[in-house]
């Protein structure tokens, strides 16, 4: 059972995660032209590389990725290379995720780029943990997705568009189509982008902060007792004293709590 678990975790770390992130890197730049239906591959622009770098710095600050543990000298060389490739894949996946939700040209592109840069820059200096970071990222990407693939796509849609088109038209009234950087893509582009973001979030959820944390087995009482029996007598006494001290502290705490509760009653 333990072997199977270890194998599965290693497979996730060395095979599944790079596959997910590389797929995100692949699909993040894919667009489908509206008129011809041809695939268009957009490599990551410079601004998305910068955003990805800032995001990775946030991952490190929020301890969502402990780089020292991923590239630890205690691991085998092959494992370190594999981990380095996974981190590189994470970087390019992040860049292409930004590429996927940023408009391709015009004013909205610069506005959204600025918002992303501002948010990521501000977050560099605030207290963070991995969970909050993920929530914040989901909101960030979700907003950009809605702006690009619902609002702007609705604006450029030929025929129909409904209230969203009218709302977007009202918001951007006065701007020319060139200022908006309009390039019509097929609705399939939005689906590809949604799939990309969903896969990216899945990859982030699967990614452990440190590779070895996941493979370490939780301590079991039977193992601890066995190890205790193998200790020399002096060490056994020290362990017993420590356990008794901790036990006494716990008992005292519980008795204080129960006394307080009965007094309140």
């Amino acid at each position, binding site marked *: 059972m333990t072997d199977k678990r270890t194998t599965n975790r*290693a497979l996730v770390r*060395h*095979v599944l995660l790079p596959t997910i992130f590389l797929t995100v890197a692949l699909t993040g730049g894919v667009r489908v032209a509206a008129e011809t239906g041809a*695939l*268009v591959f957009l490599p990551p622009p410079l601004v998305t590389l910068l955003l990805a770098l800032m995001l990775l710095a946030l991952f490190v600050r929020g301890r969502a990725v402990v780089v020292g543990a991923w590239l630890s000298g205690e691991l085998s060389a*092959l*494992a370190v290379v594999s981990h380095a490739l996974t981190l590189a894949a994470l970087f390019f996946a992040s860049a292409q995720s930004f590429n996927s939700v940023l408009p391709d040209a015009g004013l909205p592109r610069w506005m959204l780029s600025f918002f992303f840069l501002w948010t990521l820059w501000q977050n560099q200096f605030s207290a963070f943990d991995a969970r909050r970071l993920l929530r914040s990222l989901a909101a960030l990407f979700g907003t950009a997705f809605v702006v690009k693939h619902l609002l702007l796509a609705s604006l450029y849609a030929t025929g129909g568009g409904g209230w969203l088109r009218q709302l977007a038209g009202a918001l951007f009234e006065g701007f020319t189509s060139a200022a908006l950087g309009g390039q019509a893509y097929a609705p399939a582009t939005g689906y590809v982008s949604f799939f990309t973001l969903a896969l990216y979030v899945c990859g982030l959820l699967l990614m452990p902060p440190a590779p070895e944390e996941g493979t370490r087995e939780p301590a079991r009482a039977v193992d601890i007792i066995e190890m205790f029996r193998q200790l020399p007598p002096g060490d056994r006494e020290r362990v017993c004293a420590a356990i008794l001290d901790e036990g006494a502290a716990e008992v005292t705490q519980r008795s204080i709590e129960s006394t307080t509760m009965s007094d309140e009653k």
Partner: protein
Amino acid sequence: MRTVRLIPALGVAWTLVYAAFVVWLYATAPQSIKDVTTRASVAAGTYAVDRARFDAGRELFLREQYAAARDEWSRADPAQQDARTQFYVAYSFYRQGWGRVYTDDALFRQGLDAVNRAIALSPDAPLNIADPELKIHSAAELKAELEKGTERTVDDLNPLKVFRERK
């Protein structure tokens, strides 16, 4: 335990192969899934021209249906990787653009592009096509004819030009 040790090696190999595939896709920028398979077969060295379509195109070419012939050849050689097919494409542009009084520059330029592709695809030896129905057999000669057609010279004003022969 042995399996676990093998996984990082497997991961490194798989990641490198997949990353190379992604880079290749962005470098070649195929326009459709079919295009992906075509370009993959070119990269793998298994690409081959559709012989039946090529012959169908040649039949149309001999009947002076040049646009239709090129359409067949574009299906026979979608990746434009066959020197012989590209030679015929260039020849069709030459014949369609040739005129007794003047030549169609736009068609001749497309012909030049095609003949340059054909020459580039046979770097080892001069490209010669042994086809008794053609009057030009070498790619170099066809290129010279196409270049001559796009140039503006005093000779263009020569009235005897109308007696020249289409090759």
